[in-house]
């Protein structure tokens, strides 16, 4: 499935009935805005030309009582806009009350990644695969600061709070791949905290759950962790810190400062992540990496190391990964 947005569009894709109605609301509101502003622009321009100093123009008082004008031009726009208040409120209330039969997907936000868990147990990092034609309720919480989950394709967002759950529900009716963002500023990598949401036919979704969701998604999940925990910020080529590249590291010999040479196997990688001050590397580089002991849960550490095992070179790492977080398409 190709992303539905290759180049500039002047109208974003809408994949749910609510999204379409929101678009209609905004279009109608724009018409009203034009109705209220264009006369001002025209009038200013016209008056500026007609009543220039020295021009021959009628400047006698118009004789209209100003109180009447004042009240009417305050009340009429206000009453007109109230239509939009009611319309917007109705749509909002609708989008706040999920139907009871909605499929619940757990979403956890954390600096700087999203973790989604399907009702059947499969988990994804930063990307989300969902079926169409069925109400979906995202049950959202944050593990640290305030984030917000934003899905422009359904015209909805809601904050991920650290102390209580929030909900977001929608029913998509078009397949396709769309952006998924964090929209509440959350620190350094706020702009790469996101990925894509893919809406699929229910059959394809079941297929995905049994195959891709469990298997191929794992490397992508590992890569997302590699970026979310900041490993990439230092270990990728071209970073300011110039930490050693991890591509192809797995299984290769590593020279240590005390003269030994070890093989970078799974256990050594694990130990080095949790305790970077041990086993100093040869070459005299300064050890500045922080310890991740207590900061990374055991299952995520395993996923991360699985990714490192499959990571042969930076280019291959990107190519092998279906949907890298924050990469541009």
């Amino acid at each position, binding site marked *: 499935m190709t992303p539905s947005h290759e180049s*500039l569009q002047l*109208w*974003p894709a809408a994949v749910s009935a*609510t999204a379409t109605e*929101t678009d209609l*609301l*905004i279009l109608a509101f724009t018409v009203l*805005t034009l109705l*209220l*502003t264009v006369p*001002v622009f025209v*009038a*200013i321009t016209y*008056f*500026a030309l007609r*009543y*220039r*100093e*020295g021009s021959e*123009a*009628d*400047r*006698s*008082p*118009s004789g209209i009582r*100003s*109180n009447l004008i004042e009240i009417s031009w305050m009340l009429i*726009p*206000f009453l007109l*806009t*109230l239509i939009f*208040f009611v*319309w*917007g409120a109705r*749509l*909002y*209330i609708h*989008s*706040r009350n999920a139907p009871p039969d909605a499929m619940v997907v757990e979403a956890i936000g954390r*600096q700087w990644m999203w973790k989604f868990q399907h009702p059947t147990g499969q988990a994804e990092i930063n990307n989300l695969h969902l079926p169409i034609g069925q109400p979906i309720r995202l049950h959202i919480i944050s593990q640290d*600061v*305030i984030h917000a989950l*934003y899905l*422009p394709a359904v*015209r909805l*967002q*809601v904050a991920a*709070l*650290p*102390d209580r759950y929030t909900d977001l529900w929608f029913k998509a009716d078009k397949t396709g791949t769309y*952006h998924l963002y964090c929209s*509440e*500023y*959350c*620190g350094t*990598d*706020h*702009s790469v905290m996101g990925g894509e949401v893919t809406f699929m036919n229910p059959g394809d979704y079941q297929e995905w759950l049994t195959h891709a969701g469990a298997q191929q998604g794992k490397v992508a999940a590992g890569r997302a962790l590699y970026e979310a925990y900041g490993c990439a910020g230092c270990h990728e080529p071209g970073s300011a810190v110039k930490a050693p590249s991890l591509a192809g590291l797995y299984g290769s010999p590593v020279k240590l400062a005390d003269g030994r040479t070890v093989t970078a196997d799974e256990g050594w990688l694990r130990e080095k992540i949790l305790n970077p001050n041990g086993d100093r590397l040869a070459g005299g580089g300064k050890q500045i990496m922080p310890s991740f002991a207590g900061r990374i849960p055991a299952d995520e550490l395993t996923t991360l190391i699985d990714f490192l095992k499959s990571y042969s070179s930076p280019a291959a790492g990107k190519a092998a990964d279906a949907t890298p977080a924050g990469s*541009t*398409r």
Partner: protein
Amino acid sequence: MSASGSIGGTARREPHAPESTIGRKADYLHAESTLRSWFLTTDHKRIALLYLASITGFFVIGAVAAGVVRLALVVPNGAIMTNDTYNKAFTIHGVVMVWFFLIPSIPATFGNFLIPLMIGAKDLAFPKLNLTSWYVFMAGALFTLVSVVLGGVDTGWTFYAPLSTAFSNTWVLPALIGVTIVGFSSILTGLNFVVTIHTMRAPGMTWFKLPIFVWAHYATSLIFLLATPVITTALILLIAERAFHVGVFDPAYGGDPVLFQHLFWFYSHPAVYIMVLPGMGVISEIVPAFAQKKLFGYRFVAYASIGLASVTFFVWGHHMFVNGQSDLASLVFSALSFAVAVPSAVKVYNWTATIHKGSLRLDTPMLYAMGYIGLFVLGGLTGLYLATLAINQHIHATYFVVAHFHYIMVGGTVLAFLGGLHFWWPKFTGRMYSEPWGRVSALLIFLGFNVTFFPQFILGYLGMPRRYATYPAEFQLLNVLSSAGATILAAGYIFPMLYLVYSLWFGRKAPANPWNAKGLEWETASPPPTHNFLTPPEVPRIPYDYPIQAKESRDQHG
């Protein structure tokens, strides 16, 4: 009085004051010239110029930071600078522009200079307090400036907990302390204005003879007094939490991070009107002067200033529609936001009606005023999009919001500031600026502003979140357009700095009333003497006593 043909080109009545006092010991600029006489002055006019110099400096810093932000966004992948650098740059831009430029801009400079002149007083009620608040402002501002520029802070100007309290490892603490200190300066300025307007009016200067500029500053000062203490409390709690882990907002102890947002916006939404109302005051002076016509609906505009300042205290929740606020609260806040936004946006109709059947001169201040009217109405009405609950769920925290508040803050406050600066420049300095350069700059700023910010409405609707150091490639075209507009805008800002400074030495000497404007500030010399008036000013029969009076004046000022 009505007529066809030329009015205003020839002054209806000559000002009482002498033509010019430059070079004479009498005027406030030349009364004393030592550094000490400036830094220890209690003359409200000199303090206003101290503020003018300092906020211009802060504006330059904030504008450079904005330039860095726009530069970073020329490419989508963040190749120009790291995410951290970008985040620090937009934090500098927000903190400096909001706290140290926009909030003090018009009140502390024009308000300080003009309120005593407009009400016919010798000074503000508390001149020493006035000087103190400048020092407090500078102390807090420099403190924060050092921490955001040299140290770097990456929380954004809103300092949301718990990012600011527990997670950011940048120089948040000194920045917070500085902003808290600056709040006291705002309170003292507001207090001084309220007391001055209540007690220092010249005999005969009743409330409904006050210019709208004074009404707007009265309303602004009430907000300074009633809202600033709450942000001080919020910041004190934030400081205590960051420094001593007090945990009021920290969920780890059962604290509520959204509570900070409530306290923050309880101040910061009214603060929008701290920035907007003085601008409305400036425009309400410029438009009648250049139309030579009485302001349309004087009483309505005066009451609206106070009304807006009151209602604005009850709409803060519209910043939190998607932040887990209860649906009922969101409905109420949405409705109240409509109630406040519509009347403030339709104020532009009053200015438009003032131009109708006037005798118009399109000098620089008027060009800025007309630009203001156009941009402010767009900014105000796009605010209604955001107040509409269902639309807010889509465009909250996107570039639509960025575009909206820049239309209000730049299109509104900054244009009003520049318009007012040109309007009263002869009064401040006793010199005329270069009119052709002024017009060119005003047009450049209007053009540059729209090219910069209009594309951001579209970006927002397409779903580009704000505060993004990197973004999907399909948004690049609009972002490049926006950055290109920013360069035009920058040029528009640089010209006035050059020709205004040039005019200080080489400008034509200004007469007491170069625009044939009404208002007591034009009854005294340019620049005014140290105690403002050599002879007590004569208060006119009605405010805005211009040659062209609409029929309504009889209804409202019998």
